[in-house]
């Protein structure tokens, strides 16, 4: 048997009763007290367990159910130790920093702003702003060879990368002091910008208004707000 860990909480966290964790046996999720007034949210895990997409969903469910009661620093999916003794040994030196981080995150939530942009607008900007791209467009229009097409596409992709970073910075700026922290997130899609923000739970209505304003200002942007989420992006301590 091993021990699967979901996150770190204060020992006084009123973790929900009857919460079940990863594995076919649906083991109870319990708190393992450690030093610094902290506790690990954990459940038993068979030694030969295989974790797949189903378990990703369970992992997320446990973290969010606990997060509904108290602040939690989530572990990355797939973190397990042999037993409590090993767990204590593995986390001992990290506990002071985790304790500090938990206090910092008290009352805060993560939200994610996902903005999708009109393709034509973004690409027009890219073409207009880069002479090399314009030249490649002319070349490939006359002679659409694979090599030059790839070259053009690569140049456009680079420009989109820069555009995305700049746009992420601009989006974060819109939230001003509402964002106690921010992180740019991998977009996965080309004309999309994602930023994770750390905000006070109580400021969520203001965050929503800001997102609404953004959507109203520019109809070429489709904005979505996801959350409140546990502070996944802000848990790790450097």
């Amino acid at each position, binding site marked *: 048997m091993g021990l699967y860990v979901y*996150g770190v909480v204060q020992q006084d966290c009123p973790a929900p009763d009857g919460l079940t964790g990863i594995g076919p046996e649906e083991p109870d999720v319990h708190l393992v007290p450690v030093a610094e007034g902290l506790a690990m949210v954990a459940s038993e*895990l068979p030694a030969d*367990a*295989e*974790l*797949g*997409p*189903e378990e*990703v*969903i369970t992992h997320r469910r446990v973290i969010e159910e606990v997060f509904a009661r108290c602040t939690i*620093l*989530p*572990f*990355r*999916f*797939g*973190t*397990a*130790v042999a037993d409590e003794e*090993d767990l204590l040994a*593995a986390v001992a030196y990290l506990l002071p920093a985790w304790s500090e981080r938990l206090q910092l995150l008290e009352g805060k939530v993560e939200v*994610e702003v996902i903005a*999708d*942009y*009109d*393709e*034509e607008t973004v*690409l*027009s900007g890219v*073409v207009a702003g880069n002479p090399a791209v314009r030249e490649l*467009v002319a070349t*490939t*229009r006359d002679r*659409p060879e694979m090599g030059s*097409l*790839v070259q053009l*596409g690569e140049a*456009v*992709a680079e420009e989109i990368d820069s555009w995305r970073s700049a746009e992420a910075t601009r989006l974060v700026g819109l939230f001003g002091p509402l964002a106690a922290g921010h992180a740019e*997130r*991998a977009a*996965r*899609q*080309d*004309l*999309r910008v994602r930023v*994770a923000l750390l905000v006070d739970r109580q400021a969520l209505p203001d965050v929503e208004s800001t*997102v*609404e304003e953004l*959507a109203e200002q520019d*109809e070429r942007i*489709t904005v979505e*707000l*996801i959350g*409140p*989420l546990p502070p*996944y*992006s802000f848990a*790790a*301590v450097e």
Partner: protein
Amino acid sequence: MSQAYQARTPRSSGLYEVLDLILDKGLVIDAYVRVSLVGIEILTIDARIVIASVDTYLRFAEAVNRLELGGGESAEKRGLPEVMGELQEGGARSKTRGALSGVGESVSSALRGDQGEQSGERSEGPGLLGRAKEAVQESLGGERGEEASDEQSDAEEGVQSETSREQRGGPQTGSRAPQEGRRPPERRGGRS
């Protein structure tokens, strides 16, 4: 355009949006137990391939050219690969959907491949795989370029858990990670 805005609660939707938070973010410790991850790494590997592949570049090239010429029909005259036909509707929305289904499609095929090879007894269940399939069926016919298919079939073999930490190191690092340590030598010995 306030309809564009919708707040969503994490529990009711958005697994795809939070997937890489769960897989890439959060605390890490020196764990003493190595957990077998089945069909997980492929989710992140494939997302990177979608972003930085020849397929993507060709889509951009096609989109920029179409922009300049001001019409979809001339794209055919230029003889660009058929694979890009799925994007000719234009607009960020359809493009977005194309990319998403690209991920979903190869995720589900990779999961199937993986389960066949490594854990045939494992039941799939609904959840992530089901959602991935839905995403595929819901959109586009889903032909993809040869380049992308090659990369996918490489990626399908790379589901060993040993390399998971390294591979999940950073979602923004482009196509570098998929090259690392995911070719079982005994099966790919003939490869140069």
